[in-house]
């Protein structure tokens, strides 16, 4: 396994939001995480990348073991340099152009020479279909384009694993497709990804492993066909039923 976490627990105030979650991803795997709103999916990803500090849990990354509640700043920085993160709200640097957004992590954090960074940045933008928009500022781009720049920013450092937190949830429906298509390309290239999504078609067809979360726990996980066609757990069945009937819209 490339990345494995065990027994993550996290509370906000007195509310336990993650109640001992185990999750892992092997090299080249695409793991999708589905589940109702408020089940802790975002918190799980944020804990794994230490944007939120877990109260308990163990992490194994590249064969090294860490205690998540006591991981040092240095180890966290090292982990982050080997991962990418795509936010629901894009979070592009507002004072930087698209290309600068992509190269910032190379030039500043990794001291890659400017010219090499620029070339890598342009390649990454090309991969997401935005080679010609490198000079645009985020506010000059549509939501779908911004999210694609954010994906370029996440892949340009060649991370070992990329986390996506509902990358299409903030988008107008007609812009969802272009982002999902970029993500399918990444999956086809064999990139390792952990994706929280409400796009069930995508969750099923792009993944080789699906995790269903509810109420801070993993209720069921397995191959996409198993989860979507023969769910064992009552809660999974109910969730998929609700999604299919379209109750609650994009859940």
């Amino acid at each position, binding site marked *: 396994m490339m990345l494995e976490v065990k027994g993550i627990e996290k509370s906000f105030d007195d509310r336990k939001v993650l109640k001992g979650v185990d999750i892992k991803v092997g090299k080249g795997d695409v793991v999708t995480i589905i589940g109702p709103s408020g089940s802790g999916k975002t918190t799980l990803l944020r804990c794994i*990348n230490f*944007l939120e500090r877990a109260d308990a849990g163990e992490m194994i990354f590249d064969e090294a073991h860490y205690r998540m509640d006591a991981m040092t700043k240095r180890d966290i*920085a090292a982990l*982050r*340099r080997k*991962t*990418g*993160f795509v*936010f629901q*709200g894009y*979070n*592009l*640097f*507002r*004072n*930087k152009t698209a290309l600068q957004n992509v190269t*910032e*992590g190379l030039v*500043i*954090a*990794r001291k890659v020479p400017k010219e090499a960074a620029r070339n890598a940045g342009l390649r990454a933008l090309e991969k997401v279909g935005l080679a010609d928009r490198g000079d645009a*500022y*985020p*506010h000059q781009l549509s939501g779908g384009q911004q999210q694609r720049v954010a994906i370029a*920013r*996440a892949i340009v*450092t060649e991370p070992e694993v990329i986390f996506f937190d509902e990358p299409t949830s903030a988008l107008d429906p007609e812009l969802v497709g272009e982002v999902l298509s970029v993500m399918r390309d990444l999956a086809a290239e064999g990139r390792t990804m952990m994706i929280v999504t409400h796009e069930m078609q995508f969750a099923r067809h792009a993944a080789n492993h699906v995790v269903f979360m509810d109420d801070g726990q993993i209720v069921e996980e397995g191959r996409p066909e198993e989860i979507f066609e023969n769910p064992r757990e009552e809660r999974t069945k109910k969730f998929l039923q609700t999604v299919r009937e379209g109750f609650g819209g994009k859940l």
Partner: protein
Amino acid sequence: MNDRVWQLLLDSFWQILLPGIRVTIPLTLVSFALGLIIALITAMVQVANIPVVKQIARFYVWVIRGTPLLVQLFVIFYGLPSVGIILDAIPSAIIVFSFNTGAYASETIRAAIEAVPVGQIEAGYCVGMNYLQIMARIVLPQALRTAFPPLSNSLIGLVKDTSLAANITVAEMFLAGQRIAARSLEVMAIYCEVAFIYLLFCTVLTKLQTYCEKRMNTY
């Protein structure tokens, strides 16, 4: 108005403008530049939540904002000598004006930093940057853009506040005006002229502010 008054206004114009250019403007610019540095440090230690230093910063802002500028000038220039610290008028004025600007501007900058969405910082961490890199490259540039209009206001305010330095013998524009008014007895005309020159300075700054804001509007 008769010819004599016009002549007086013309003659005194340069006598007032000159100390404006020689004293008021440099005093303003030096104090403001130092004030910005103080403000940036004061804001940063609060945002970065550095214990003790943060409390000192809060105390400093509290004292400066809670006491009159004129009183601060008197304390430094007339008060300090009694404890053995003797400063010339200009250094006294620079110290008071820069610490005054520092206190007010630090609140402006702090508010602007806190207005930068936390997602910008998280994105910085996720691309591998450290706290200082994120501050320098992402947060501060955005915050200074937000803080620019209120900081311009502070600068314009400072131009006018430097007239208080006349009270501690700094030979700036207002003091020059006072002297001419006393000699000529055309008090109304001369003080209006002084006011007019301040207005001139501030108008130039306002134009400059508008120009800079337009140029910064790229993002």
